[in-house]
């Protein structure tokens, strides 16, 4: 008798995951409400500075997702465990969602502040490269149908793409940039830290909940691929035998 791969009915969201979703939504709503209605307007940016409470947490969440993907890729290559691939797949997809939002939010903020929707500033350019690199990995995964080949290629590409994460972070220090400096106690006023930290924690929780949910879907695929008699989703291309 062989075990059949789990169906969605057998892998419902566990109780902790539902609790995490609720906690994340409440936390991020509290942080955003604080930033929108209670925090003072920024000294130079005025009301547009309130986008900070959305933009910075989104950046941290995207980077945390890519860090999780990097850790999963290293662990997957090290141990050869297929389940790490589920974490990598989930973290990259959620990371790309947050990274795209990061670029869009930055663009909306840049229009009234810099007068342009986009400029080839080092921070913006390196972030755009990050989005393209990780989105490219998702495309690559779609093209590879042999599980082992897909796992290895994804892990190697993830490690390579992750090199851009510290470059994005330090780009405002390494090059002349229009972008705000790193958000630290000496660059952000004390009264802005409260809503900023609450929003950061809330958004990180939202990211964690999304990665957990996406990983559950990926684990179903892993289980299906490991089931006896599994065939790739698409047939391998026909090859002529050597004469």
């Amino acid at each position, binding site marked *: 008798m062989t075990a059949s791969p789990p*169906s*969605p009915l057998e892998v419902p969201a566990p109780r902790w995951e539902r609790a995490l979703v609720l906690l994340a939504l409440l936390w991020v709503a509290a942080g955003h409400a604080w930033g929108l209605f209670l925090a003072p*307007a920024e000294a130079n940016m*005025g*009301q547009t500075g309130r986008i900070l409470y*959305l933009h910075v947490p989104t950046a941290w969440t995207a980077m945390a997702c890519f860090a999780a993907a990097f850790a999963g890729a290293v662990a997957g290559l090290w141990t050869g465990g297929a389940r790490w691939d589920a974490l990598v797949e989930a973290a990259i997809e959620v990371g790309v969602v947050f990274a795209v*939002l990061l670029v*869009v939010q930055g663009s*909306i903020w840049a229009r009234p502040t810099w007068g342009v929707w986009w400029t080839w500033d080092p921070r913006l350019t390196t972030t755009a490269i990050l989005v393209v690199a990780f989105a490219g990995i998702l495309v690559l995964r779609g093209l590879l149908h042999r599980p082992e080949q897909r796992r290895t290629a994804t892990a190697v590409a993830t490690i390579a793409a992750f090199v851009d994460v510290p470059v994005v972070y330090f780009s405002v220090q390494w090059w002349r940039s229009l972008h705000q400096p790193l958000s630290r106690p000496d660059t952000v006023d004390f009264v802005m830290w409260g809503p900023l930290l609450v929003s950061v924690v809330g958004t990180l929780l939202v990211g964690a909940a999304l990665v957990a949910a996406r990983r559950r879907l990926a684990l179903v695929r892993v289980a299906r691929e490991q089931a006896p008699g599994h065939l790739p989703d698409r047939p391998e291309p026909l090859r002529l035998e050597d004469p």
Partner: protein
Amino acid sequence: MSPETVPAGVIEGGWEYVWAAYALSWAAVLLYAWSLRRRGKRVP
């Protein structure tokens, strides 16, 4: 541009940009969460 030549002052208005950024982000995250739920139901 040297610090002396950076124009001083506060950006007036801008709430429409703030609302656009927040609304778009919340909508995108909720839409993605909903898509995960849909994909979960379609898994064979």
